């Protein structure tokens, strides 16, 4: 086989947020570079506030990098218009709340927008592709239910289906497992990984779940306070002392002897003393 295609290349990209009302220094993502190949799943891990989401926004084009460039299949992201971009890269992210009723099928068909004539209607092809990705994500049997009525696991699969309907080359997942039970987490990431292999997507998975990253990623980036601390093979990134320092807690890292996959176990006693795992993102409404 030939060398796999480079789906995504980030060349020394950085970003500084505009000063937030004079409260301390504005957050800055220091220049960093990495690449994602076709069929590869790259995990981006790090504590809250380490710059994971900023990195994802730069790669998806929501933010323009201050320095450097993002290349998608070798073409600069900045030169793509919005529609062309949506054919290249799809994002699965925490959804905004939906105030208007919409069926699952109509929701998935939104992924075909980028292929539609501005005033156009979905062709039979569009519907066929939507049906196909719904079969893949096992959402076809509730195609006519409202998205608002779905459980967290079902909704996450529908979001993935909509992203796949875009027929992208690069799939970006922002904390896709946040509201899911452990069984659904594993199911979703297993599906994403097998799709990446089969359809040659490049996948970037942003997560604060170290063990899910360790279980499913091919390689990982570790961010801390806006810096890329380490990048590469899982065994290198999941180094005990490094993780202990960054997450400020005592922990053990076990490497599976056959798969080589790391597993992180936080010391319970230490965790309660230091505050332990980063606080959940599910903060109550203000």
């Amino acid at each position: 086989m030939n060398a796999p295609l480079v789906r995504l290349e980030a060349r020394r990209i950085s970003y500084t947020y505009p000063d937030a009302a004079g409260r301390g220094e504005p957050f800055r993502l220091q220049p960093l570079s990495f690449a994602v190949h076709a069929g590869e799943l790259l995990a981006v891990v790090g504590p809250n506030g380490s710059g994971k989401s900023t990195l994802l926004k730069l790669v998806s084009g929501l933010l323009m990098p201050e320095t450097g460039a993002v290349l998608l299949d070798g073409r600069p992201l900045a030169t793509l218009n919005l529609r062309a971009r949506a054919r290249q890269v799809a994002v699965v992210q925490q959804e905004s709340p939906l105030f208007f009723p919409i069926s699952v099928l109509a929701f998935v068909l939104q992924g075909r927008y980028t292929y539609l004539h501005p005033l156009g209607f979905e062709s039979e092809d569009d519907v066929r592709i939507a049906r196909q990705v719904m079969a893949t994500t096992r959402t076809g049997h509730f195609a006519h239910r409202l998205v608002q009525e779905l459980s967290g696991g079902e909704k996450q699969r529908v979001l993935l289906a909509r992203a796949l309907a875009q027929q992208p080359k690069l799939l970006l997942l922002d904390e896709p497992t946040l509201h899911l039970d452990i069984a659904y987490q594993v199911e979703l990431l297993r599906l994403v990984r097998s799709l990446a292999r089969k359809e040659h997507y490049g996948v970037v998975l942003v997560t604060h779940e170290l063990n899910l990253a360790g279980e499913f990623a091919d390689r990982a980036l570790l961010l801390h306070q806006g810096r890329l601390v380490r990048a590469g093979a899982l065994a290198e990134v999941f180094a005990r002392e490094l993780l202990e320092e960054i997450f400020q807690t005592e922990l053990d890292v076990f490497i599976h002897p056959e798969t080589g996959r790391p597993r992180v176990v936080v010391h319970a006693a230490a965790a309660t003393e230091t505050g332990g795992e980063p606080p959940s993102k599910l903060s109550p409404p203000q």
Partner: protein
Amino acid sequence: MEAVLTRKRVLKVCALLLAVLLVLGVVAVSVGAVPIPLGRVLRALVGSTTALSVQDELIVFSIRLPRILLAMLVGAALGVAGAGYQALLRNPLADPYVLGVSGGAALGAIISLALAERVTVATPVAAFLGAALTIAVVYFLGQRGEQLSPYTLLLAGIITASFLSAVITFLMNFLSGRDLRGMAFWLMGDMSNPPPLDLLFWLFLLILGAILAVFMLANNLNLLLAGEPEALQLGVNVRRTKLIVYLAASLATGVAVSVSGAIGYVGLLVPHLVRLLFGSDYRLLVPASALVGAVVLLVADTLARTVIAPTELPVGAVTAVVGAPLFIYLLRRPRFAAAAGSKE
């Protein structure tokens, strides 16, 4: 029912609604303080000069027909403005009247009448500016941080509306020597003094333009409803879409208010009725809201001038009687409450 919308279905529904509108329009011409038989109205409308007596002809062509056309036009404008604002603000309760936009348009129109009464075109332009300015202010007030909070937005709109109606009341008393139409006209809406047919034609073109502008963006609006970052990721030019819909919905509202006053709840009621009947896809929702809006306001105005004939009610009183309870119902529906209450 297949959930995928087709062009054929849009055309079919629109043709059906158009037929209903025409039939109701003819019926509305025949009813009133002086009833005129339907058969004769029909013959007169298709060109017969002998069907009506001189007096009836005056009633049909000079009094009822302009008023009926005005009701249809204003209904279409308000229906589409409501649908547009609902997508723009991602708020199912958005409505030009509730948000104070109609009040802003009315204030603009009153000011232009007070300053330049002779300039006919100044009134709709000033009303448009009033509408655009008001929605901008409400949008600004409704923001909490970077998010547009649904409840804060509604409160901001309702408070703006009540403030504007106070200003209008004050101005009307201040300018009481001048004939600027009555206070009830600007605050409640009234169709009893329709503009002449040639002016009506120009207003028709403006409103048609606004409706087409919103319609052209129907696919974008469908995605905008799912959230702005999502729409952006799916390939929608969010900024341009919002700007055009903002201008078009404000234009439709401004023009409508300049000729009929601030008629409430049509922009709220109509899109929801359409969603209930035909689904919520904007490619059908926009043209159907125009046609259903025309039907609804035609019916409301016909009721306003017939229920206690020969006395007339302001048409806004009729729409408010139906619209206000509907607003409360929608506000209390679990889906809106749940969505608005969760993480913002």
